[in-house]
């Protein structure tokens, strides 16, 4: 064992140590919240549509004061247009991570990214 350790130079120990810390730190960083899988669109709190994030799709949702346009692209979704006066949900841009949400309050419409951690559609090998 010590014969092998003697083959490591001081810098090697530093590189290996840094790399180990980096790898260990990357686990929680990447794995929180699971993979973004779905865009959930709600009107007045009830789910209007669940869109698969794997496919491109545009959805128009009739809200309280007009129509909100939801755009889904592979791996992300956003509110493209909304009749609300301040456009907060539109200016939020693309949502990618599970749990991110854009709320168009005046129009009673929300768009949320959901991960696949708590539920499985299928498990296969």
């Amino acid at each position, binding site marked *: 064992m010590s014969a092998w350790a003697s*083959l490591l130079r001081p*810098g090697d120990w530093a*590189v290996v140590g840094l*790399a180990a810390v980096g790898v260990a730190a*990357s686990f929680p960083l*990447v794995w929180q919240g699971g993979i973004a899988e779905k865009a959930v669109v709600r009107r007045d709190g009830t789910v209007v549509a669940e869109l698969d994030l*794997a496919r491109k799709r545009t959805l128009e949702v009739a809200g309280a004061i007009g129509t909100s346009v939801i755009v889904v692209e592979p*791996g992300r979704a956003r509110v493209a247009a909304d009749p609300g006066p301040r456009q907060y949900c539109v200016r939020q841009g693309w949502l990618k991570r599970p749990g991110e949400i854009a709320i168009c309050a005046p129009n009673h419409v929300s768009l949320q990214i959901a991960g696949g951690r708590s539920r499985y559609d299928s498990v296969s090998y």
Partner: protein
Amino acid sequence: MTRSVTETVTLQTTAEDHRVARLAAAAIALSLVDAAIPLPLPGVKPGLANIVTLLVLYRYGFATAAWVTGLRIVAGGLLLGHLFSPGFFLSLSGGVLSLFMLALAQRLPQRWFGPVTLSVLAAFAHIAGQLLLARLWLIPHDGVFMLSPLFFAAALFFGIINGLIVARLLAEPATVEPQHA
């Protein structure tokens, strides 16, 4: 074909060509061993051929190492039957990026940084190259990166082992180059 059948064509080869061919053959053999070892996660491999790349880098310099790696990837692709398939391009992008990393890393002061550093850095660059190509081309979705902590952990583990093997081999008295006819 204008040549007669009896006439033989002789390629002029140098001693350097023979050395590259011999080392590439060793690397190809190791990448076949690599492919034969069953591991639970697809994409995780010991990368034994990198031992040859590193040894060549230390003994003969970067140019020879690049040649050996290039030949290993192409001929290995032929033998494993994945030439010009996605797997081949993944291996190519990994190989190119790890060579690039080695070109930079070999400038580190040798007094402090040995083969293990180079091996770990090359392994990281290798998996990073593969992940980037997979993200850009094969699976255009950030979900690709979900497995990256596992891949990098495996790269660290095998990088250390391969680096130790290289350090051990370099510590042995240099064997006399077999005289090639």
